[in-house]
């Protein structure tokens, strides 16, 4: 079973506060930090579906429950798969400390064991989808280099276009990627990924985003594998912010249903 880095929630929950220094010229690093530090409320919970569509148009569906909570030290993400049956009740806990350190735990019902997950798993496919764990994580700007390439509109939203590449090879499976960040809300709404040979291999596109309870949220998005011609849709069915989630949800004990 694949291991998860769960900060993909970043793509789902993208709250916005009006930037104070909008008038100032932002550097590429400033924009990266603005994406990283975007407030997401005290906590949130969502029900999300992932639809895998192959080149023949065949569909496969995964449904999951996701809870996120910030505390002064870390952002904690808990996930439990609701379907399909073969991965149902598989659960994940990810703790992303503000100093860049990460801890991840996986519970596989068949093994009845909570397993601590190593970082080498992050470059691999997330439950058969076109997302890798790396694609879904909350990227700490300390680990990457950024270059502001240009400013342009994406789906009528003014965006910064950043080129990003890892400071160390082990931080990413990509040579570099280009991302479109909305000026309003610092949402990453499009990403072109280039493999280690420098070939464009994948594309992430936000299809719909809107404010929910005052927080900008990507409602649906698409990741396309440009080589293999299949894609994955990620759709948020229901999301609530600031629901008062208890700390006990984000424990290893809770991984076992």
């Amino acid at each position, binding site marked *: 079973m694949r291991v998860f880095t769960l900060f993909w929630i970043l793509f789902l929950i993208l709250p916005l506060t009006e930037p104070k220094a909008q008038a100032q010229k932002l550097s590429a690093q400033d924009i990266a930090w603005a994406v990283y530090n975007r407030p997401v409320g005290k906590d949130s919970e969502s029900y999300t579906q992932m639809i895998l569509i192959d080149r023949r148009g065949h569909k496969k569906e995964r449904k999951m429950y996701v809870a996120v909570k910030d505390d002064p030290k870390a952002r904690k993400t808990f996930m439990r798969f609701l379907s399909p049956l073969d991965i149902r009740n598989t659960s994940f806990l990810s703790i992303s400390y503000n100093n860049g350190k990460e801890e991840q735990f996986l519970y596989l019902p068949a093994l009845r064991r909570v397993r601590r997950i190593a970082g080498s798993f992050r470059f691999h496919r997330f439950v058969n989808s076109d997302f890798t764990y790396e694609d879904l994580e909350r990227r700490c700007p300390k680990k990457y280099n950024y270059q502001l390439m240009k400013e342009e509109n994406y789906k009528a939203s003014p965006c910064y276009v950043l080129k990003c590449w890892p400071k160390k090879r082990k931080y990413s499976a990509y040579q570099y990627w280009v991302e479109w960040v909305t000026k309003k809300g610092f949402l990453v709404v499009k990403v072109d990924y280039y493999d280690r040979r420098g070939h464009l291999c994948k594309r992430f596109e936000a299809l719909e985003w809107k404010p929910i309870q005052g927080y900008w949220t990507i409602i649906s998005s698409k990741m396309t594998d440009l080589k*293999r011609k299949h894609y994955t849709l990620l759709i948020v069915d229901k999301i609530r912010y600031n629901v008062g989630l208890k700390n006990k949800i984000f424990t290893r004990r809770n991984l076992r249903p």
Partner: protein
Amino acid sequence: MKKATGLLVLIFMVFAPSRPVKALENFDFKGELWARGALHLKQQRPYQDNSLDHETLLLQGEGDLSEEILFKAGTRLERLAFHGNGSTREDTRLELWETYLDYRGGSYQITLGNQIIRWGKTDEMTILDNLNPQDLRELMTLRLEERKHPWPWLRAQYFASNLTLEGVFTIWPVWHMKEDFGTDWAAFDHLKAQLEDIPALKSWARSLKLDKQRPGPSLRDAEWGFRLTGTFSSVDWEASFLHAHNRSFYYYITSFPIKGLWLNSISDISSALSRAIIVGNTIRISRPEDDILGLAFETTWGEAGLRGEFAYHTNQVFLRKDLYGVRKPCWQYVLGLDYQFMNGLYANLQFSQRYIQGWDKSILFEPRWDSGLFLRLSKTYLQDFLECRLDAYYDLTTRMYYLNPEVRYKIQDEYTLFMGLHLLDGPAGTFFDLYDANDQIYVGLKAVF
């Protein structure tokens, strides 16, 4: 059946609600069908089986009785059949599967009933996962999670901020499932059939039997243990103690009806009979106690996962060359490292070493020091729907090995087809040498609904 009834009564008595329960909430039902057929690749021994088939149907339901209490119930229908020598030996059973009540209080949790409990931190090769009986009727050719059967335990856990204390208790001593005679994987192989072919021994061989002296449920024969787990600086650790009965693969034979045997391998037994004296027809087996002290850890090291277990047995059971059981203290450790390469290859390497205290040359198969390597390599294709995997074990001391290459393909999320090989062998006199002729090719299907 008595065990199941007693268990259900006990569960009811402990968890009986003070007010009527309206109905199960959030009721969830699931089922699983698993089937595997295997064909032997070699036919080099008399009485050998040609093939086997193994099927299970699991039905499981669970729901919340209240906010704190979860109820789970399951049953499993199983059939295992060995084919060969013009006959089929079939074992069909209906078992109570995971059936328990689980109470979750604020900082504690109590689970009572038939359950599967996992102790230890390492993966496939674990030496601390001793709380459930294993189905060894096909030796270790099933995966660990497929071999484990639920067992009635009372389990209590207390969760402090960075520590968890766990206690387990059962009045039913755990006992692995094994065949005694008449299959290629049985403890005594096809010995009976072999002996029946010797005219002078025919009637004696037919009457040969095992008296397993299986202890009934009692406080005297109860098993119990506790475990403390915690995390220190990103290292998960555990310390455990388990008062158990024999968990070894070997029977503890207290009386063997043939005297004067001195074997280097069980396959020698029919030829060794010529110099032996028959004194009865019953092999008596008892279940000595064995206390297991365990330590384990799990952490990450760079981009890799690192795990380890240590176990000290006060009375591990081994077999002597006269086929009597012997108990020896021994210790063993396992160290494991796993890593996922950028190209998708997954590798999991485990090294184990065991030392038998007070070892002497009369012990069959097992050397004083025994070291082994387990390797799992796996790579996925077609968006992870196709998995190619190799499990390999090589004993560095005795040079015996086990190989299990397997291909798994998910036709749909709910349906998985798999096929592979079980190849095992070892030099003469080693444990795997007994199963040299058991190489097999298998194909199977798993469906969840």
